[in-house]
C-alpha cells in the first residue's frame, strides 16, 4: 500500500482550516449558526452539482463550458411548461430533456466530428445563451407551483434544506459511480490515455458522449434548482458558473489533463469556495477585498498542497 500523502487531502484540510478560521473570528457574528452553514450549502448546491458532472467530463479528458447557459435553458423550459399549466413532473422531464439535448449536441460534435470540447462547448455556451434570451425575450418567468419550489428550491425535508439534500445525493451518486463502477473506470482510462483505453476495449467515444449527456442533465438539474430557489426562471442564470464549477473540480484535486478524478474533493472544493465567499462578506470585507482574498486562497490552497519542485 502506498503511503498516504497528506497532499492529496489538502482541499479537505483547507476547508477545515477556513471553517475554523471563520469560526474563531466571526463565529459570534452568526457565521457558525446552523442557518448560515445551511446557507452556504444551499447557495453552492448548483455549482456543486455542475461540478460533480464536470468532474466526470474532466476526468474523461474533456471540458464543458456550456453548463451555465444550459442551466438557464432548462430553468426556462421547465418554468414555461408549468406556466402553460402542465404538472410539475412534466416540467422536470422537459427541463431534463433540454439539458440532455444540449449534452447530446456537445457529445456529437466532440465524439463524432472530433472537435476539441473547449471550442464546442464555448460555441455552445454562446449559442444557448442567445437562445435563453430569445425564449422569453429576456423576461423572467415566475413559478407558482409550490411543490416544484419546495422540492427544487426552498423546501426542507426532515429539517434539511432540499438544496443541501440534492447536492449531497448527487455527489454521493457521482462518488459511487466514479469509484465503484466499471463506467467510472472507463471514464478514467479514457481520460488517462485514450488510445490505450481503446486498445483495451473501452468504447471511448461512447464514454465521452455519456459524460456530456451527464453534464447536460446535471446542468438541467442545477437550472431547476436555481429556478426553484428563486421561484422564477431567468435567461442569465448560471453566468460564470462554468468557471466556478471547473475551479471547484480542480481545487478538489482532479487533474485537468484527465485520468484522475475525485468527487469528494470536488464537493469539498465547491464548499470551500462557498464558505470563503460567505465568510468574507460576514467579516465585512468589501467586494474588491473579497475578490482578492478569494483569489489568493484558491492559489494558496493548492500551493500549500504541493512540495516545492514537485
Amino acid at each position, binding site marked *: 500500500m502506498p503511503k498516504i500523502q497528506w497532499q492529496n487531502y489538502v482541499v479537505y484540510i483547507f476547508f477545515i482550516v477556513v471553517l475554523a478560521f471563520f469560526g474563531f473570528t466571526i463565529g459570534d*457574528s*452568526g*457565521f457558525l*449558526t446552523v*442557518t*448560515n452553514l445551511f*446557507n452556504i450549502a*444551499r*447557495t453552492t448546491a*448548483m455549482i456543486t452539482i455542475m461540478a460533480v458532472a464536470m468532474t466526470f467530463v474532466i476526468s474523461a479528458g474533456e471540458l464543458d463550458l456550456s453548463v451555465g447557459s444550459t442551466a438557464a435553458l432548462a430553468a426556462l423550459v421547465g418554468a414555461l411548461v408549468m406556466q402553460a399549466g402542465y404538472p410539475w413532473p412534466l416540467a422536470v422531464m422537459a427541463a431534463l430533456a433540454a439539458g440532455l439535448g444540449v449534452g447530446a449536441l456537445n457529445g456529437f460534435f466532440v465524439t463524432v466530428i472530433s472537435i476539441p470540447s473547449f471550442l464546442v462547448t464555448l460555441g455552445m455556451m454562446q449559442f444557448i445563451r442567445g437562445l435563453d*434570451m*430569445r425564449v422569453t*425575450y*429576456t*423576461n*423572467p418567468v*415566475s413559478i407558482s407551483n409550490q411543490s416544484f419550489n419546495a422540492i427544487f*428550491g*426552498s423546501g426542507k425535508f426532515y429539517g434539511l434544506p432540499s438544496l443541501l439534500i440534492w447536492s449531497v445525493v448527487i455527489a454521493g451518486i457521482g462518488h459511487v459511480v466514479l469509484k465503484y463502477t466499471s463506467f467510472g473506470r472507463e471514464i478514467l482510462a479514457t481520460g488517462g490515455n485514450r488510445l490505450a483505453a481503446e486498445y483495451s476495449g473501452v468504447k471511448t467515444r461512447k464514454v465521452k458522449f455519456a459524460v456530456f449527456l451527464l453534464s447536460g442533465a446535471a446542468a438541467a438539474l442545477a437550472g431547476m434548482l*436555481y429556478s426553484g*430557489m*428563486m*421561484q*422564477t426562471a*431567468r*435567461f*442569465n*442564470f*448560471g*453566468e*460564470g*458558473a462554468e468557471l466556478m464549477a471547473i475551479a471547484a473540480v480542480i481545487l478538489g484535486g482532479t487533474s485537468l489533463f484527465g485520468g484522475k478524478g475525485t468527487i469528494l474533493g470536488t464537493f469539498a472544493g465547491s464548499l470551500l469556495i*462557498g464558505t470563503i*465567499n*460567505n465568510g468574507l*462578506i*460576514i467579516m*465585512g470585507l*468589501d*467586494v474588491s477585498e473579497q475578490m482578492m482574498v478569494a483569489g489568493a486562497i484558491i492559489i494558496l490552497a493548492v500551493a500549500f498542497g504541493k512540495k516545492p519542485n514537485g
Partner: protein
Amino acid sequence: DVAADIKHPLWYTEPSAKTMELAKLDDLSNTVVSDGQRGEPGFPAADLKLTDEQIEKVKAGNFTVAISMGWLGDDWASQQLIGLKETFEKLGIKVVAETNANWDDAKQIADLEAISVLQPDLLVSIPLNGQTTASAYKKIAEAGSKVVFIDQAVDGMEPGKDYAAIISSDNLALGMYLADALHEAIGGEGDVAAMYFANDFYVTNLRYEGFIARVMAKYPDMHVVVAAGHNDPNKGQEVAQGVLARYPSLDGMYASWSIPAMGAAIAANVAGRTPGDFKIVNENFDQIVALNMAQNGFIAGISSQRPYDQGVAEATIGALTLIGEETPSYVVVPPLKVTRDTLPEGYKTIYRIDLPEEMSGALSN
C-alpha cells in the same frame, strides 16, 4: 409612426396611454412621470426631512445596515454609496456589510443570505431582478431587518409592511429628457439611433420606453431609424461602429450609460463624423462624458440622475423606518437635464463641488 417599424428590444412593451399623455407635456419639471410599481404616486426626495429629535433617536439606536449593490464601477454606484455612507455616518448607523452581485442574480441571493446572518437592522439594496431575488429579500424582512429598495422592489413584498420604500429616479422622465436633449442637439429634425442595454433590466427598460414615447408624442421630425442593443458596456463602441457603418448619415444617438456613450463617441470619430454633425446623449452624468461635453465633443446632452441625493434619500428613509416612523413608499429623485451651457450648475448639483479645472478650462475655450 416614428419608431414603430424599428426592431425594438426583446423586452419592449408599448408605452401606456398615461405615459403617452404625459409625454405630450412640454414641461416635465413639476411632474412625476413614473408611478411606483404598486401604482402609487411619487414623493419628491427633496421633501424628506429628519428632525433633531429623530436624529438623536437614531443615534441612540446603535443601528447596523448592510448595503447590497447589483454592480459597481460607475459614478452612479459610487455617488450612491457616498450618499448612503455619509448619511449613515452622520446618523451613527454602522455599515456592517457591503456586497456587489456583479449583475448575477444567484450571487445576489448568496450575498443576501450572508447578510441575513449578520441580522442588520436595515438593508439597502438594488434588486437585480424583481422576481428572482424576491424570496431572499422576503427572508431578510421576515427575520426583522427593515428593507429599503433602490430603484425597484421585488415581487410579493408590500410597501409599508415588508419594506419601507423604493427610492428611484423618475426613469420614464429620464428617457423623455433624453429625447428632449437629443432633439435639441440635432436641431429639431433628423435620423437618430437608440443604443439600449439588451438585458431585461427594470430601470433601463423604462428609460427606453420613455425615450420612445416622447419621440412619438412630440418629435415627429426626429426619426429613430435603428435600435441596437449591447449586453456589455465595454462593447458599446463595437455596436456603435456597426450602426454607423450601416447608417453613415445619422444625426445623433441615444446611448444607454456613459461607457457605451463614450464608445459611440470614439466610433463616430473613427467613422469621420464630427461633433458638429453627430450628437450623442446619455443618462449617466459621470466625469468622462462631462469632460467630453465640456470639450465640445460628441456628447451633447445628459439626462442625469442624482445618485448622491438618491443615496441620501435612501439613508434618510432607512433612518425613519428604523425608529418606527411612517414613510412614503415611493420616493422619486427627479432627473436633471444637463447641456454644455448648464454644465457648471449641473455639476455642482450632482457632485456638490465646483467643476474641475480641466472641464472649466475646456468650457471657456
